[in-house]
């Protein structure tokens, strides 16, 4: 079992709900990233998703797109992110979230090797589906890096069985048909869908996409093992800074 799966499972077994924030690496400068990670760890995060900026982020909505543009404008590259992570001791596990071309271009074997000397314990690649999973799984086989699968509202029952049976780290349960972002309406059948995934999955299930209000957190925690919060934290870090974002997180979990 990969260490990310073990850490999250232990928290769950101890009766804790999980919280994984997403932030865009370098959106506010790589020099501030360490403080952002430390704040999120203090705020009760179980792990942190670090976004890798990409020119064509088709799974993301306007807030994360803009953060990616800011990050690239500040000169952030995958190489610089990894160089930063090699020097940084994270208090909690990190998960790299990026588009496949970034990783492919870096070189998948080199990526796994380089990440193995950091606190990155998982990757999320939204445009690398189950059908092509071996492209990452093969080079990552001997490593401690979990390949995290997304399950969506359009995933059939049969497909959910496939996705959860081989999943590592946690299941990322996408709550809407659409891109990441704030202020989304949820479909009526969502909660039944989440419950189904949670019942089938041997590892923790976290709900993500559009989670931005305390009532979202409460209701998703009833159906899943925790939540992933991205756009509203990304927006707050850009507009309000670290301290106010910490306060925002406190209100979300109050």
């Amino acid at each position, binding site marked *: 079992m990969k260490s990310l799966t073990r850490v999250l499972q232990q928290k769950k077994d101890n009766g804790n709900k999980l919280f994984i924030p997403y932030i865009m690496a370098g959106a506010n400068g790589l020099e501030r990233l360490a403080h952002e990670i430390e704040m999120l760890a203090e705020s009760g995060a179980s792990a942190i998703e670090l976004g890798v900026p990409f020119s*064509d982020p*088709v799974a993301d909505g306007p807030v994360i797109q803009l953060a990616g543009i800011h990050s690239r404008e500040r000169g952030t*590259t995958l190489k610089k992110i990894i160089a930063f992570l090699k020097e940084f001791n994270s208090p909690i596990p990190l998960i790299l979230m990026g588009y496949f*071309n970034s*990783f*492919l271009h870096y070189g998948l074997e080199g990526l796994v090797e380089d990440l193995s000397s950091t606190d990155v314990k998982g990757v999320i690649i939204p*445009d690398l*589906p189950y059908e*092509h999973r071996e492209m990452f799984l093969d080079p990552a086989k001997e490593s401690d890096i979990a390949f995290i699968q997304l399950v969506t509202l359009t995933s059939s029952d049969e497909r959910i069985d496939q996705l959860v049976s081989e999943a590592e780290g946690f299941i990322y349960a996408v709550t809407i*048909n659409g891109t990441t972002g704030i202020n989304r309406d949820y479909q009526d059948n969502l909660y039944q869908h989440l419950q189904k995934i949670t019942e089938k999955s041997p590892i923790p299930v976290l709900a993500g996409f559009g989670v931005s209000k305390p009532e979202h957190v409460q209701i998703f925690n009833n159906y899943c093992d925790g939540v992933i919060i991205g756009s509203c934290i990304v927006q707050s870090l850009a507009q309000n800074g670290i301290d106010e974002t910490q306060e925002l997180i406190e209100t979300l979990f109050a």
Partner: protein
Amino acid sequence: MYQQPDNKGFYGEFGGQFVPETLMYAVKELTQTYEEAKKDPEFQETLDYYLKQYVGRETPLYYADNLTKHLGGAKIYLKREDLNHTGAHKINNAIGQVLLAKRMGKNKIVAETGAGQHGVATATAAALFGMECIIFMGEVDVKRQELNVFRMELLGAKVESVVSGSRTLKDAVNEALRYWVATVEDTHYVLGSALGPHPFPEIVRDFQSVIGTEAKQQYLEVEGKLPEVALACVGGGSNSIGLFYPFINDKDVRLIGVEAAGKGLDTEEHAASITKGDVGVLHGSKMHLLQDDDGQVLEAFSISAGLDYPGIGPEHSHLYTSGRAEYKTITDEEALEGFHLLSRTEGIIPALESSHAIAYAMKLAKEMSPEESILICLSGRGDKDVQQIKERMAQE
């Protein structure tokens, strides 16, 4: 015997289905629907009916005598896709895909467009079959292809101007994909080039291969042999794969794709994905891509909005790496020479896209003998480009 793609949608190492999980349901549904439609004589009859009675097929294979004499060398034949309804080859695929959407019970269509020809074709097919239609188009292209925007609106489509990124085709594809993710249950994405996740490159190739199939038959009737060269412009690569595909097993026929070199290959303003790019993944497919050292996709540039895309269809990547097809480049200036030459010698105003193929033939014909022939896909007519050319000529 050439048989591509494989059962995972790869052409050699290129292709695949690199899309978010939400869309996997749609690409699998489309794969199954297309597999069934391919074998269904009723579907093929319906498609043939509309291609003949509505689109105006078959299109002529025209021997360009004046151009041939002017260039002095190989005979030039033009496959006249510009004579299709709506003025370009794009309608072949749009009709086919809207019929597939109908078969899947979907009544809404989303598409992206660069030059506007695919947008017009899709809006036309959507109007014909009574479907709602939304077209994403980069803000830059909305301005340079004003006439086509108006045509789409007349046809009842909603045109969304995209202001992100380079505001051209690449960004229009991003927005169309985002829209599709949110509406996937009742909307079909009519992809306009031989790009995107499997099965799109295969579907577009098959619907466009009517170009090569007709041209081959027509050429055999006239010359009693096959042409020495089949030549077409390449952006995403739909008209070229449509021309090439029926000739792939005919090893003596040189297949030549012409990429847009824009302001020159030594500048950063071009769209030569094979010549200057390297292998990457974008918009659902592994292919040759213009990208920087960090794997960020670069903005492409061409005078021709339809060639202004940083990638190329995966089958072209495969034909290139396997050595079956060659890929050359033509600059904006050279394409303009081709544009003017065909207009003046033959009375045919070509699209700027097709002008790239004409311009390369201007170089190649001289190196060949009068017994040999170049078969060119004249993918579209130039009405849409005349305003842009007029403004450019006024500045000079």
